[in-house]
């Protein structure tokens, strides 16, 4: 059982007033707040460990390198990956997808197909569009049903020997749908396609087991799992990472350099050009350790409770329309109330000290599919409470009264 008040105490930012009200932060899908230990880890790095990694022989450089590489090991364990060199640090989920999609530019041909789903974030659409544009491959879309679930029959019929890549999110940021990624991967492998799983939203809410899923690529953002911004991690199967060309050139990613020829470093450094976000990398370990100390099973159970309570209470509001009602859903609620524009609702909730996301959530195709301009999205984290859900419900009612 979680002691939420104890957890809340660890988040300095939560204890403030916004527009005269105690802050209710329900925009965790965009970014989560950071526990004190993570903030301390960043400060500690700059105060006591700061040095460039992988190159110095001096004490501090060694210390920083050890800490940074210890974080890679933590990510490996967290992902249940076989090898340390299968973990690439990136600046976030978006860069991870770009790294992979960019590499596929040289592997794709004009008869090849890339499948993405109808409920992707722009960051798992646009890099693939760019890869298709430069390689001549085609982009196909796995459709969804009215509840915001992927149409698995349609997916199966889209798969063919031309399919080279399938890119899907584990959990949809706009709707909260948990996709059956294991099944998606199994089916893709039957036609020899590689699968990239965008784990931006699953990172904070669920276990990640790349071995069990048999994922070819899996990526997360640090800032969505209670860690710093500017750091993320990509898991790639060794054989795939070896096939992909380097993403960026520079220091760190080379073995030898001459004006005639440069040879590249081995994994993972081949994909890590330049000085990385060392502080972020080190603090990411702290964040993952913190999350695992609470226990993902506890987190999932508690967030489910919040989801059920919020859904039940919001449903009592007249004109409430949930967008995305998948039977397997994470603690994300996208909704509209009557004809009220999500922007208007968001403005008033903000004035009441309630932070939600409004708009298309960087998933315009999803909104087009539902023929709506956007939604109001409340996304929960482990530090949210039922009292905060009540504040949201009251806020929505107040806004409705003002706007009708």
């Amino acid at each position, binding site marked *: 059982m979680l002691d939420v008040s104890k957890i809340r105490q660890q988040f300095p930012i939560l204890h403030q007033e916004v*527009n005269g009200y105690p802050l209710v932060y329900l925009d965790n899908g965009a970014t989560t707040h950071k526990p004190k230990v993570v903030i301390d880890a960043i400060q500690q790095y700059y105060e006591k460990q700061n040095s460039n990694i992988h190159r110095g022989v001096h004490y501090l450089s060694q210390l920083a390198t050890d800490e940074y590489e210890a974080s890679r090991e933590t990510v490996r364990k967290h992902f249940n990956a076989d090898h340390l060199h299968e973990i690439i640090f990136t600046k976030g989920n978006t860069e991870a997808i770009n790294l992979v999609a960019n590499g596929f530019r040289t592997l794709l041909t004009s008869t090849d197909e890339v499948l993405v789903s109808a409920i992707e974030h722009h960051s798992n659409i646009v890099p693939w569009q760019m890869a298709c544009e430069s390689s001549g491959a085609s982009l196909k879309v796995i459709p969804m049903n009215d509840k915001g679930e992927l149409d698995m029959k349609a997916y199966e019929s889209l798969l063919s020997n031309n399919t080279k890549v399938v890119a899907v999110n584990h959990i949809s940021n706009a709707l909260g749908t948990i996709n059956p990624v294991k099944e998606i991967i199994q089916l893709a492998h039957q036609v020899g396609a590689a699968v990239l799983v965008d784990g931006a939203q699953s990172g904070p809410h669920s276990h990640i087991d790349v071995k069990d899923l048999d994922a070819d690529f899996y990526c997360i953002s640090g800032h969505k799992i209670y860690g710093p911004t500017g750091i993320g991690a990509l898991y790639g199967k060794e054989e795939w990472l070896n096939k992909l060309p380097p993403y960026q050139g520079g220091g760190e990613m080379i073995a030898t350099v001459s004006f005639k020829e440069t040879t590249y470093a081995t994994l993972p450094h081949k994909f890590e050009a330049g000085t990385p976000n060392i502080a972020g990398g080190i603090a990411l370990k702290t964040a993952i350790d913190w999350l695992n100390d609470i226990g993902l099973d506890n987190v999932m159970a508690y967030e489910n409770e919040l989801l059920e309570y919020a859904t039940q209470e919001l449903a009592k509001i007249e004109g409430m329309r949930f967008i995305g009602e998948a039977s397997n859903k994470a603690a994300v609620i996208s909704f509209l109330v009557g004809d009220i*524009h*999500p*922007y*208007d609702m*968001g*403005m*008033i909730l903000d*004035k009441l000290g309630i932070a939600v996301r*409004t*708009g*298309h959530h960087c998933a315009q195709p999803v909104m087009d599919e539902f023929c709506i*301009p*956007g939604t109001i999205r409340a996304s929960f984290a482990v530090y949210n409470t039922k009292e905060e859900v009540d504040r949201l419900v009251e806020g929505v009612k107040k806004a409705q009264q*003002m*706007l009708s």
Partner: protein
Amino acid sequence: MASIKDIQQDIIDEFDMFDEWMGKYEHIIDLGKSLPLIEEANKTEDNLIKGCQSRVWLHANKQEDKVVYTADSDAIMTKGIIALLVRTFSGQKAQDIVEADTNFINQIGLKEQLSPTRANGLVSMVKQMKLYALAFQSQN
């Protein structure tokens, strides 16, 4: 016709009556509801200013030496601010519009509405209103 400055002062006085944000917001919402709508025929793709959060349509035409604006938005709060901008600028001389500032929005405590980060299309709309005025002015 009152000058732009006078109208802006009237608006500032009008909003001074409200002590709290809620009153101000309710007034903005009322203004949004009562904004004369843009003619459907003018709600074209060309007249659409795409904000990330809300959409704004703006139409301008010249009547003698004055510029007449009509506008609309899909969000009522945005529409309320539009009503204030139309009230200030519509029917004024092109040159006066070009030279006018929009600081009154800050003074009535709705600064955040005209912030580029709100992405509600209003910043682009003000720019567009001035561009129309500039274009009409150069026709003279």
